[in-house]
């Protein structure tokens, strides 16, 4: 009997953290209120007192807290990241989610007791890459970028002792995480260095005679006809012209949903499933956590062979999906 799969849920705020814990998350992941994490959005994340309270709340209920410090510091702001590691150690978080090797080196030297996870922003897509981090920094878990097909994921799991965590649900990066400078190109701010993709301060919504237009730093990302739901201008999910055809040239606004892959993920030895969405509301966290908890409990009780997805689960998840639709992403080869 393999170890049960852990459910790792987003906590963009203290209310979201409590909601996730109350609805059955095994772990919550969160970040400080600054550029040290990849969801550096206004109004999100934790200041030190909130962090202290959040950790206490989760630990009192036997759940774990993972701290995301998954952006890349530069020479001039390096101390902000190392101080964040020091604070995390002091707060007693259960693991750090890091992407930068320099920071991993700092963490292993300064706080050797701290458990390290390799962030999806580390762009490690092969066991050779993951094993490099394991040998150098003793990482215990790696979060895989959303680029591998299911057999490729299985091959990674089979060739490393590091626990593998995969994304199960939520917003879908179509690009390899940690390898995307599209936002930097359009706005000067990137997920890698600023913790933000298509940041809100560069977004403009304009009602025009041609329809509602969404712009990012002046660049037209999409235009919506009357009655069309105007989505946030994440720049890889806009409609563009290529050879006189106008379409979602990179990706539609859609969410990843791998609920139906759960038995297979269990069989191949996935250790944890991550729910995306620290920028989403506590209501989203409640909805998604509840469904995935039920699914994982059913899987644990009946085993992979007896597992089936209840129609109600999909309906609940589609309600909170971006664009109200979902995809298996790269796990399913034809998506590529």
């Amino acid at each position: 009997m393999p170890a049960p799969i852990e459910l790792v849920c987003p906590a963009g705020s203290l209310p979201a953290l409590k909601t996730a814990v109350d609805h059955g998350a095994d772990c919550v992941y969160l970040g400080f209120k600054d550029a040290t994490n990849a969801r550096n959005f206004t109004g999100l994340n934790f200041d030190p007192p909130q962090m202290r309270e959040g950790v206490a709340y989760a630990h009192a209920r036997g759940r774990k807290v993972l701290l995301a410090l998954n952006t890349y510091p530069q020479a001039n702001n390096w101390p902000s990241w190392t101080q964040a590691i020091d604070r995390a150690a002091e707060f007693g978080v259960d693991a750090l989610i890091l992407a930068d090797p320099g920071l991993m080196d700092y963490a292993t030297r300064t706080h050797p007791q701290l458990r390290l996870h390799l962030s999806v922003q580390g762009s490690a897509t092969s066991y050779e890459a993951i094993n490099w981090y394991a040998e150098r920094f003793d990482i215990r878990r790696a979060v895989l970028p959303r680029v591998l097909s299911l057999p490729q994921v299985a091959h990674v799991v089979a060739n490393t002792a590091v626990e593998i965590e995969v994304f199960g649900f939520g917003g879908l990066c179509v690009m390899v995480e940690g390898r995307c400078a599209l936002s930097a190109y359009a706005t000067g701010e990137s997920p890698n260095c600023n913790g933000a993709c298509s940041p809100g301060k560069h977004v403009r919504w304009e009602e025009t005679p041609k329809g509602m237009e969404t712009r990012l730093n002046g660049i037209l990302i999409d235009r919506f006809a009357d009655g069309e739901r105007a989505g946030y201008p994440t720049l890889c999910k806009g409609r563009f012209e290529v050879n006189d055809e106008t379409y979602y040239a990179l990706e539609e606004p859609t969410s990843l949903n791998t609920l139906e892959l759960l038995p297979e993920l269990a069989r191949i030895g996935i250790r944890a499933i991550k729910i995306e969405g620290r920028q989403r509301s506590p209501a989203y966290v409640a909805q998604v956590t509840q469904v995935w908890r039920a699914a994982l409990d059913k899987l644990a009780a009946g085993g992979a062979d007896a597992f089936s997805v209840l129609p109600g689960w999909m309906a609940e998840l589609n309600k909170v999906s971006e664009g109200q639709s979902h995809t298996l992403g790269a796990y399913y080869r034809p998506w590529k």
Partner: protein
Amino acid sequence: MMGTHPMKLALGPLLYYWPRQSVLDFYADIADSPVDSVYLGETVCSRRHELRLDDWLEVGDMLNAAGKEVVISTQGLIESESDLKVLRRIVRQSAEDRPGFRVEANDMGAVRLLGEAGATDWVAGPTLNIFNPATLQLMIDAGATRWAVAPEMSGTALAAVRAALAAAIETEVFAYGRLPLAHSARCFTARHFNLQKDTCEFRCLAIMDGITLRTREGEPFLTLNGVQTQSARVHNLLGDLPAVRQNAEVLRISPQGSDTRRVVELFRAALDDAQTPAAALAASRELMVEAPCNGFWHGRAGAEQYVAA
């Protein structure tokens, strides 16, 4: 000389999928051009096979005989065991058969394999996400002897990294070409033709500079190059050379569908003071497939063409 040290010119890996004969002709022409280093190999998509690794190595032998330094670049996104097999062969070739060829590591899997092979003279590629002195030092300790800087890094930020190092490392800046901005598992060229990647019919073949993606206002924005997304604009640091050469020893020029050699010659002329940077930038305009940009170097949006007031 406008600077204090000699500058090398490097030709980056060919990012597009050109017909075999076009590739061979291209490098035959490069053999007597004023570049010092040439990066070879397929870095974008494992399905591209007009040239296999052995063919790339032969091109490397030809360029080496012509006096060029040869670097074999590894694939940016490693997905399968067959990708790893190619990676292992590249590392082995460099360690055993062609000790003169360096390897450019473009993911940490390559770094691990180079370490296992005991390699001590490799290039830390632009996709390794080296943004601070601590991480760069780890790569230097692991055997990196050149740092190819991520294009999104500003001149100021890279100068700060260099200033904090105990010992200098040769630094290479992306100086010319459409910017490689993102990699995906999905092929956007296949998607454009309503095909899946596994049955893509190699539709990117002979699209010499990728496919321009425009906004719905007709503004060129990005370039589709298979699984890679590039800028539509051409990153061009010719006008910024005085500042660039304070902080780099090598300039990378990315191959384009035509006139790459003339671009190389313009850079050489500007570096040798045969032409002012402003004049070289003006002369390069007719060689560019799209308008220039240089925002990344100035710590701004990459798409901007920034001219200091």
